[in-house]
Protein backbone atom coordinates (compact mmCIF):
# COMPACT_ATOMS: atom_id res chain seq x y z
CA UNK A 1 0.00 0.00 0.00
CA UNK A 2 1.58 3.29 -1.09
CA UNK A 3 1.65 6.46 1.01
CA UNK A 4 -1.01 8.00 -1.23
CA UNK A 5 -3.35 5.06 -0.65
CA UNK A 6 -2.86 5.28 3.09
CA UNK A 7 -3.52 9.02 3.03
CA UNK A 8 -6.66 8.47 0.94
CA UNK A 9 -7.85 5.81 3.40
CA UNK A 10 -7.37 8.12 6.39
CA UNK A 11 -9.12 11.00 4.65
CA UNK A 12 -12.04 8.73 3.81
CA UNK A 13 -12.26 7.57 7.43
CA UNK A 14 -12.33 11.20 8.57
CA UNK A 15 -14.97 12.25 6.05
CA UNK A 16 -17.26 9.27 6.46
CA UNK A 17 -19.80 10.74 8.86
CA UNK A 18 -19.75 14.24 7.42
CA UNK A 19 -21.62 13.23 4.25
CA UNK A 20 -24.61 12.19 6.37
CA UNK A 21 -24.63 15.56 8.11
CA UNK A 22 -24.27 17.43 4.81
CA UNK A 23 -27.21 15.50 3.30
CA UNK A 24 -29.44 16.19 6.29
CA UNK A 25 -28.65 19.90 6.14
CA UNK A 26 -28.99 20.24 2.36
CA UNK A 27 -32.24 18.29 2.21
CA UNK A 28 -34.07 20.77 4.40
CA UNK A 29 -35.03 21.90 0.91
CA UNK A 30 -36.20 18.80 -1.02
CA UNK A 31 -33.74 17.28 -3.46
CA UNK A 32 -33.23 14.19 -5.62
CA UNK A 33 -30.32 11.80 -6.05
CA UNK A 34 -28.26 13.24 -8.91
CA UNK A 35 -29.05 16.85 -8.02
CA UNK A 36 -27.87 16.28 -4.46
CA UNK A 37 -24.70 14.61 -5.76
CA UNK A 38 -23.91 17.75 -7.77
CA UNK A 39 -24.70 20.06 -4.86
CA UNK A 40 -22.52 18.05 -2.50
CA UNK A 41 -19.68 18.18 -5.00
CA UNK A 42 -20.06 21.95 -5.45
CA UNK A 43 -20.11 22.46 -1.67
CA UNK A 44 -16.90 20.55 -1.13
CA UNK A 45 -18.29 17.15 -0.09
CA UNK A 46 -17.03 15.03 -2.98
CA UNK A 47 -19.04 11.83 -2.76
CA UNK A 48 -19.34 8.79 -5.03
CA UNK A 49 -22.75 8.09 -6.53
CA UNK A 50 -22.60 4.49 -5.32
CA UNK A 51 -22.10 5.75 -1.75
CA UNK A 52 -24.74 8.47 -1.81
CA UNK A 53 -27.67 6.57 -3.36
CA UNK A 54 -27.71 3.71 -0.83
CA UNK A 55 -27.12 6.25 1.96
CA UNK A 56 -30.25 8.21 1.03
CA UNK A 57 -32.40 5.11 1.12
CA UNK A 58 -30.87 4.04 4.42
CA UNK A 59 -31.59 7.43 6.02
CA UNK A 60 -35.14 7.21 4.65
CA UNK A 61 -35.57 3.73 6.16
CA UNK A 62 -34.29 5.04 9.51
CA UNK A 63 -36.87 7.84 9.39
CA UNK A 64 -34.46 10.77 9.05
CA UNK A 65 -35.61 11.53 5.49
CA UNK A 66 -39.11 11.62 3.99
CA UNK A 67 -39.57 10.95 0.30
CA UNK A 68 -42.05 11.82 -2.39
CA UNK A 69 -42.24 11.01 -6.09
CA UNK A 70 -42.37 13.99 -8.41
CA UNK A 71 -43.94 13.00 -11.72
CA UNK A 72 -44.51 16.49 -13.10
CA UNK A 73 -41.53 16.23 -15.43
CA UNK A 74 -40.80 13.71 -18.17
CA UNK A 75 -38.41 11.87 -15.87
CA UNK A 76 -40.05 10.83 -12.58
CA UNK A 77 -37.73 11.64 -9.65
CA UNK A 78 -37.77 10.66 -6.02
CA UNK A 79 -37.41 13.76 -3.83
CA UNK A 80 -36.07 13.50 -0.32
CA UNK A 81 -36.64 15.96 2.50
CA UNK A 82 -35.20 15.99 5.99
CA UNK A 83 -37.81 14.89 8.53
CA UNK A 84 -38.24 16.29 12.05
CA UNK A 85 -36.16 13.39 13.37
CA UNK A 86 -33.59 14.13 10.68
CA UNK A 87 -33.38 17.77 11.73
CA UNK A 88 -32.84 16.69 15.35
CA UNK A 89 -30.12 14.28 14.23
CA UNK A 90 -28.49 17.05 12.18
CA UNK A 91 -28.48 19.30 15.26
CA UNK A 92 -26.82 16.58 17.38
CA UNK A 93 -24.25 15.83 14.70
CA UNK A 94 -23.49 19.53 14.21
CA UNK A 95 -22.96 20.01 17.93
CA UNK A 96 -20.67 17.00 18.00
CA UNK A 97 -18.76 18.22 14.95
CA UNK A 98 -18.21 21.62 16.58
CA UNK A 99 -17.02 19.97 19.78
CA UNK A 100 -14.54 17.88 17.80
CA UNK A 101 -13.37 20.91 15.81
CA UNK A 102 -12.78 22.83 19.05
CA UNK A 103 -10.94 19.90 20.57
CA UNK A 104 -8.76 19.49 17.49
CA UNK A 105 -8.05 23.23 17.44
CA UNK A 106 -6.87 23.07 21.05
CA UNK A 107 -4.38 20.34 20.03
CA UNK A 108 -2.91 22.31 17.15
CA UNK A 109 0.09 24.42 18.19
CA UNK A 110 -0.33 28.12 17.46
CA UNK A 111 1.76 29.43 14.61
Amino acid at each position, binding site marked *: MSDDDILAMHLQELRRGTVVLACLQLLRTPG*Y*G*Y*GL*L*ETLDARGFAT*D*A*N*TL*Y*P*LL*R*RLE*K*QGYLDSEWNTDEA*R*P*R*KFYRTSAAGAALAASLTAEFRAIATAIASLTPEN
Partner: protein
Amino acid sequence: MTNLTERYIYAATRSVPEKSRGDLSTELEASIGDAIDARVDSGEPRIEAERAVLNDLGDPDKLAAGYTDRPTFLIGPRYYFEWWRLLKLLLWIVPVCAAFGIALGQVLSGAPAGAIIGSTVAGVLGVVVHLAFWVTLVFAILERSAGRSAGDSAPPEPWATWSVDRLPEIRPKGMGFGDMVASLVFLAVAAVAIVWDRFFGFVWTGEERMPVLNPDLWPWWIAGLFVIMIGEAAMAIAIYRTGRWTPGFAVLNAVLALAVAVPAIWLLVNNQLLNPAFFTTVIPADSAAEVYSVVSVLTGFGIAIIAGWDIIDGILKTFRPARTPVCQS
Protein backbone atom coordinates in the same frame (compact mmCIF):
# COMPACT_ATOMS: atom_id res chain seq x y z
CA MET B 1 -33.37 3.44 -21.51
CA THR B 2 -30.77 1.52 -23.49
CA ASN B 3 -29.68 -2.04 -23.17
CA LEU B 4 -26.63 -1.29 -20.99
CA THR B 5 -28.53 0.79 -18.44
CA GLU B 6 -31.31 -1.77 -18.41
CA ARG B 7 -28.85 -4.56 -17.70
CA TYR B 8 -27.13 -2.49 -15.02
CA ILE B 9 -30.39 -1.75 -13.21
CA TYR B 10 -31.41 -5.39 -13.45
CA ALA B 11 -28.08 -6.49 -11.96
CA ALA B 12 -28.21 -3.92 -9.15
CA THR B 13 -31.82 -4.59 -8.10
CA ARG B 14 -32.38 -8.32 -8.62
CA SER B 15 -31.33 -9.16 -5.05
CA VAL B 16 -33.38 -6.33 -3.51
CA PRO B 17 -36.70 -7.39 -1.91
CA GLU B 18 -39.57 -7.41 -4.39
CA LYS B 19 -41.63 -4.74 -2.66
CA SER B 20 -38.99 -2.04 -3.00
CA ARG B 21 -37.55 -3.16 -6.35
CA GLY B 22 -39.85 -1.13 -8.59
CA ASP B 23 -39.29 2.03 -6.58
CA LEU B 24 -35.53 1.51 -6.56
CA SER B 25 -35.35 0.70 -10.30
CA THR B 26 -37.21 3.88 -11.22
CA GLU B 27 -35.04 5.99 -8.94
CA LEU B 28 -31.81 4.45 -10.18
CA GLU B 29 -32.94 4.88 -13.78
CA ALA B 30 -33.59 8.59 -13.14
CA SER B 31 -30.21 9.04 -11.40
CA ILE B 32 -28.34 7.33 -14.25
CA GLY B 33 -30.34 9.32 -16.82
CA ASP B 34 -29.55 12.60 -15.04
CA ALA B 35 -25.85 11.78 -14.94
CA ILE B 36 -25.78 10.83 -18.63
CA ASP B 37 -27.65 14.02 -19.58
CA ALA B 38 -25.15 16.11 -17.63
CA ARG B 39 -22.24 14.53 -19.56
CA VAL B 40 -24.05 14.89 -22.89
CA ASP B 41 -24.76 18.56 -22.13
CA SER B 42 -21.03 19.11 -21.73
CA GLY B 43 -20.45 17.69 -25.21
CA GLU B 44 -19.84 13.98 -24.74
CA PRO B 45 -21.45 11.47 -27.15
CA ARG B 46 -24.36 9.67 -25.48
CA ILE B 47 -22.95 6.16 -25.90
CA GLU B 48 -19.65 7.05 -24.22
CA ALA B 49 -21.41 9.08 -21.54
CA GLU B 50 -23.52 6.06 -20.60
CA ARG B 51 -20.50 3.77 -20.36
CA ALA B 52 -18.64 6.31 -18.23
CA VAL B 53 -21.57 6.81 -15.86
CA LEU B 54 -22.12 3.08 -15.36
CA ASN B 55 -18.40 2.45 -14.91
CA ASP B 56 -18.34 5.19 -12.25
CA LEU B 57 -21.23 3.56 -10.41
CA GLY B 58 -19.12 0.41 -10.27
CA ASP B 59 -19.96 -3.20 -9.51
CA PRO B 60 -23.76 -3.48 -9.36
CA ASP B 61 -23.51 -6.24 -6.76
CA LYS B 62 -21.66 -3.83 -4.47
CA LEU B 63 -24.34 -1.21 -5.04
CA ALA B 64 -27.04 -3.79 -4.33
CA ALA B 65 -25.29 -4.74 -1.08
CA GLY B 66 -25.41 -1.06 -0.12
CA TYR B 67 -29.12 -0.88 -0.85
CA THR B 68 -30.03 -4.00 1.09
CA ASP B 69 -27.56 -3.20 3.89
CA ARG B 70 -26.10 -6.64 3.45
CA PRO B 71 -22.65 -7.54 4.81
CA THR B 72 -20.00 -7.81 2.12
CA PHE B 73 -17.92 -10.22 4.15
CA LEU B 74 -18.35 -13.81 5.22
CA ILE B 75 -17.78 -13.34 8.95
CA GLY B 76 -17.45 -9.81 10.27
CA PRO B 77 -15.83 -8.32 13.36
CA ARG B 78 -18.89 -9.13 15.47
CA TYR B 79 -18.41 -12.88 15.24
CA TYR B 80 -14.85 -13.24 13.99
CA PHE B 81 -13.23 -14.05 17.34
CA GLU B 82 -16.04 -16.35 18.46
CA TRP B 83 -15.68 -18.21 15.18
CA TRP B 84 -11.90 -18.41 15.44
CA ARG B 85 -11.90 -19.61 19.07
CA LEU B 86 -14.48 -22.31 18.43
CA LEU B 87 -12.78 -23.47 15.25
CA LYS B 88 -9.41 -23.74 17.00
CA LEU B 89 -10.91 -25.66 19.92
CA LEU B 90 -12.75 -28.11 17.68
CA LEU B 91 -9.76 -28.56 15.39
CA TRP B 92 -7.67 -29.62 18.37
CA ILE B 93 -10.19 -32.10 19.72
CA VAL B 94 -12.26 -33.59 16.93
CA PRO B 95 -9.54 -34.78 14.51
CA VAL B 96 -7.74 -36.57 17.37
CA CYS B 97 -10.94 -38.39 18.33
CA ALA B 98 -11.70 -39.13 14.68
CA ALA B 99 -8.20 -40.50 14.08
CA PHE B 100 -8.59 -42.77 17.07
CA GLY B 101 -12.04 -43.93 15.99
CA ILE B 102 -11.05 -44.63 12.41
CA ALA B 103 -7.86 -46.43 13.42
CA LEU B 104 -9.78 -48.51 15.95
CA GLY B 105 -12.38 -49.49 13.37
CA GLN B 106 -9.70 -50.42 10.85
CA VAL B 107 -7.78 -52.49 13.40
CA LEU B 108 -10.94 -54.27 14.48
CA SER B 109 -11.75 -55.16 10.90
CA GLY B 110 -8.25 -56.61 10.52
CA ALA B 111 -6.90 -54.17 7.94
CA PRO B 112 -3.15 -54.22 7.21
CA ALA B 113 -0.97 -51.46 8.70
CA GLY B 114 -0.69 -49.50 5.44
CA ALA B 115 -4.45 -49.42 5.00
CA ILE B 116 -4.93 -48.33 8.63
CA ILE B 117 -2.54 -45.38 8.21
CA GLY B 118 -3.94 -44.48 4.81
CA SER B 119 -7.57 -44.44 5.77
CA THR B 120 -6.82 -42.66 9.08
CA VAL B 121 -4.96 -39.85 7.28
CA ALA B 122 -7.66 -39.56 4.60
CA GLY B 123 -10.41 -39.68 7.21
CA VAL B 124 -8.80 -37.00 9.39
CA LEU B 125 -8.32 -34.72 6.37
CA GLY B 126 -12.01 -35.18 5.55
CA VAL B 127 -12.98 -34.40 9.14
CA VAL B 128 -10.86 -31.22 9.17
CA VAL B 129 -12.39 -29.98 5.91
CA HIS B 130 -15.93 -30.74 7.07
CA LEU B 131 -15.35 -29.17 10.47
CA ALA B 132 -13.96 -25.94 9.02
CA PHE B 133 -16.70 -25.75 6.42
CA TRP B 134 -19.69 -26.35 8.69
CA VAL B 135 -18.48 -24.15 11.54
CA THR B 136 -17.82 -21.34 9.07
CA LEU B 137 -21.18 -21.86 7.39
CA VAL B 138 -23.04 -21.64 10.70
CA PHE B 139 -21.26 -18.39 11.59
CA ALA B 140 -21.81 -16.94 8.11
CA ILE B 141 -25.55 -17.61 8.51
CA LEU B 142 -25.48 -16.16 12.02
CA GLU B 143 -23.76 -13.05 10.67
CA ARG B 144 -26.63 -12.62 8.22
CA SER B 145 -29.53 -13.37 10.53
CA ALA B 146 -29.20 -12.49 14.21
CA GLY B 147 -30.41 -9.09 15.29
CA ARG B 148 -29.31 -7.11 12.27
CA SER B 149 -30.82 -3.67 12.48
CA ALA B 150 -29.27 -0.57 11.03
CA GLY B 151 -27.17 1.47 13.44
CA ASP B 152 -27.08 -1.36 15.92
CA SER B 153 -23.43 -1.98 16.60
CA ALA B 154 -23.50 -3.65 20.01
CA PRO B 155 -23.74 -7.43 19.83
CA PRO B 156 -27.15 -8.37 21.23
CA GLU B 157 -26.31 -12.00 22.01
CA PRO B 158 -25.23 -12.59 25.60
CA TRP B 159 -22.57 -15.12 24.61
CA ALA B 160 -20.98 -12.64 22.24
CA THR B 161 -20.32 -10.04 24.92
CA TRP B 162 -16.88 -10.39 26.35
CA SER B 163 -16.18 -9.81 30.03
CA VAL B 164 -13.18 -10.28 32.33
CA ASP B 165 -14.63 -13.63 33.37
CA ARG B 166 -13.39 -14.96 30.07
CA LEU B 167 -9.76 -13.95 30.51
CA PRO B 168 -7.53 -16.99 30.10
CA GLU B 169 -5.65 -18.20 33.18
CA ILE B 170 -1.91 -17.60 33.22
CA ARG B 171 -0.74 -21.15 32.85
CA PRO B 172 1.95 -22.59 35.10
CA LYS B 173 4.20 -25.03 33.28
CA GLY B 174 2.67 -28.49 33.06
CA MET B 175 -0.86 -27.34 32.45
CA GLY B 176 -0.45 -25.94 29.00
CA PHE B 177 -1.82 -27.08 25.76
CA GLY B 178 1.03 -29.44 25.02
CA ASP B 179 0.34 -31.41 28.21
CA MET B 180 -3.29 -31.94 27.27
CA VAL B 181 -2.36 -33.04 23.77
CA ALA B 182 0.34 -35.33 25.18
CA SER B 183 -2.20 -36.97 27.52
CA LEU B 184 -4.70 -37.45 24.70
CA VAL B 185 -2.10 -38.85 22.32
CA PHE B 186 -0.76 -41.20 25.00
CA LEU B 187 -4.28 -42.50 25.70
CA ALA B 188 -4.97 -42.96 21.98
CA VAL B 189 -1.69 -44.83 21.46
CA ALA B 190 -2.40 -47.02 24.50
CA ALA B 191 -5.89 -47.83 23.22
CA VAL B 192 -4.59 -48.70 19.75
CA ALA B 193 -1.86 -50.85 21.36
CA ILE B 194 -4.43 -52.80 23.38
CA VAL B 195 -6.57 -53.41 20.31
CA TRP B 196 -3.49 -54.28 18.27
CA ASP B 197 -2.38 -56.76 20.93
CA ARG B 198 -5.72 -58.52 20.82
CA PHE B 199 -5.99 -58.85 17.06
CA PHE B 200 -2.37 -59.16 15.96
CA GLY B 201 -0.39 -59.86 19.11
CA PHE B 202 2.73 -58.12 20.32
CA VAL B 203 4.86 -61.19 20.86
CA TRP B 204 6.39 -63.18 18.03
CA THR B 205 6.81 -66.75 19.21
CA GLY B 206 8.81 -67.86 16.20
CA GLU B 207 5.79 -69.31 14.49
CA GLU B 208 2.97 -66.91 15.19
CA ARG B 209 2.09 -63.64 16.87
CA MET B 210 0.48 -63.81 20.26
CA PRO B 211 -1.28 -61.34 22.51
CA VAL B 212 0.33 -60.45 25.84
CA LEU B 213 -2.97 -59.70 27.57
CA ASN B 214 -5.44 -62.48 28.25
CA PRO B 215 -7.91 -62.61 25.31
CA ASP B 216 -10.64 -63.58 27.78
CA LEU B 217 -10.54 -59.99 29.06
CA TRP B 218 -12.45 -59.06 25.92
CA PRO B 219 -14.94 -57.60 25.62
CA TRP B 220 -16.10 -56.47 29.08
CA TRP B 221 -12.90 -55.90 31.05
CA ILE B 222 -11.33 -54.07 28.12
CA ALA B 223 -14.53 -52.09 27.54
CA GLY B 224 -14.36 -50.99 31.18
CA LEU B 225 -10.74 -49.97 30.67
CA PHE B 226 -11.70 -47.91 27.61
CA VAL B 227 -14.43 -46.14 29.60
CA ILE B 228 -11.85 -45.18 32.24
CA MET B 229 -9.46 -44.01 29.52
CA ILE B 230 -12.19 -41.79 28.07
CA GLY B 231 -12.60 -40.43 31.59
CA GLU B 232 -8.84 -39.72 31.70
CA ALA B 233 -9.08 -37.91 28.37
CA ALA B 234 -12.01 -35.83 29.59
CA MET B 235 -10.07 -34.96 32.73
CA ALA B 236 -7.02 -33.87 30.70
CA ILE B 237 -9.25 -31.54 28.69
CA ALA B 238 -10.98 -30.27 31.84
CA ILE B 239 -7.64 -29.53 33.52
CA TYR B 240 -6.52 -27.60 30.45
CA ARG B 241 -9.77 -25.65 30.37
CA THR B 242 -9.55 -24.86 34.09
CA GLY B 243 -5.89 -23.95 33.77
CA ARG B 244 -4.76 -25.61 37.01
CA TRP B 245 -5.04 -28.73 39.12
CA THR B 246 -7.65 -28.50 41.84
CA PRO B 247 -8.14 -30.89 44.81
CA GLY B 248 -11.13 -32.24 42.88
CA PHE B 249 -8.92 -33.15 39.95
CA ALA B 250 -6.38 -34.78 42.30
CA VAL B 251 -9.15 -36.93 43.82
CA LEU B 252 -10.57 -37.80 40.41
CA ASN B 253 -7.07 -38.61 39.15
CA ALA B 254 -6.53 -40.94 42.13
CA VAL B 255 -9.91 -42.63 41.61
CA LEU B 256 -9.19 -43.21 37.94
CA ALA B 257 -5.70 -44.55 38.69
CA LEU B 258 -7.09 -46.94 41.32
CA ALA B 259 -9.93 -47.94 39.00
CA VAL B 260 -7.29 -49.23 36.60
CA ALA B 261 -4.73 -50.56 39.05
CA VAL B 262 -6.96 -52.42 41.54
CA PRO B 263 -8.82 -54.57 38.99
CA ALA B 264 -5.57 -55.13 37.08
CA ILE B 265 -3.79 -56.45 40.17
CA TRP B 266 -6.81 -58.50 41.16
CA LEU B 267 -6.89 -60.07 37.71
CA LEU B 268 -3.15 -60.66 37.90
CA VAL B 269 -3.42 -62.42 41.24
CA ASN B 270 -6.17 -64.61 39.83
CA ASN B 271 -4.00 -65.38 36.75
CA GLN B 272 -6.44 -63.70 34.40
CA LEU B 273 -4.51 -60.59 33.29
CA LEU B 274 -1.74 -62.04 31.14
CA ASN B 275 -2.21 -64.51 28.33
CA PRO B 276 -1.50 -67.96 29.84
CA ALA B 277 -0.83 -69.43 26.39
CA PHE B 278 1.99 -66.92 25.96
CA PHE B 279 4.07 -68.42 28.77
CA THR B 280 3.49 -72.04 27.88
CA THR B 281 4.48 -71.35 24.30
CA VAL B 282 7.49 -69.13 24.79
CA ILE B 283 9.12 -70.70 27.81
CA PRO B 284 10.22 -74.34 28.25
CA ALA B 285 7.57 -76.26 30.15
CA ASP B 286 9.69 -77.10 33.21
CA SER B 287 10.39 -73.48 34.17
CA ALA B 288 7.17 -71.91 32.81
CA ALA B 289 5.39 -71.73 36.16
CA GLU B 290 8.39 -70.10 37.83
CA VAL B 291 8.88 -67.49 35.09
CA TYR B 292 5.15 -66.83 35.08
CA SER B 293 5.13 -66.04 38.80
CA VAL B 294 8.20 -63.79 38.51
CA VAL B 295 6.68 -61.89 35.59
CA SER B 296 3.40 -61.63 37.48
CA VAL B 297 5.07 -60.17 40.55
CA LEU B 298 7.07 -57.69 38.46
CA THR B 299 3.93 -56.69 36.53
CA GLY B 300 1.98 -56.31 39.76
CA PHE B 301 4.64 -54.06 41.28
CA GLY B 302 4.90 -52.14 38.03
CA ILE B 303 1.15 -51.44 38.00
CA ALA B 304 1.16 -50.43 41.67
CA ILE B 305 4.18 -48.13 41.29
CA ILE B 306 2.79 -46.41 38.17
CA ALA B 307 -0.62 -45.90 39.83
CA GLY B 308 1.00 -44.61 43.05
CA TRP B 309 3.26 -42.23 41.14
CA ASP B 310 0.30 -40.99 39.10
CA ILE B 311 -1.71 -40.27 42.27
CA ILE B 312 1.18 -38.50 44.01
CA ASP B 313 1.95 -36.51 40.85
CA GLY B 314 -1.63 -35.25 40.81
CA ILE B 315 -1.45 -34.21 44.46
CA LEU B 316 1.92 -32.47 43.96
CA LYS B 317 0.60 -30.55 40.96
CA THR B 318 -2.43 -29.47 42.97
CA PHE B 319 -0.45 -28.05 45.87
CA ARG B 320 2.60 -26.87 44.00
CA PRO B 321 2.89 -23.13 44.63
CA ALA B 322 1.47 -21.14 41.78
CA ARG B 323 4.15 -19.48 39.74
CA THR B 324 3.80 -16.67 37.30
CA PRO B 325 5.68 -17.78 34.24
CA VAL B 326 5.17 -14.47 32.44
CA CYS B 327 8.38 -12.83 33.62
CA GLN B 328 10.51 -15.96 33.51
CA SER B 329 12.23 -17.06 30.38
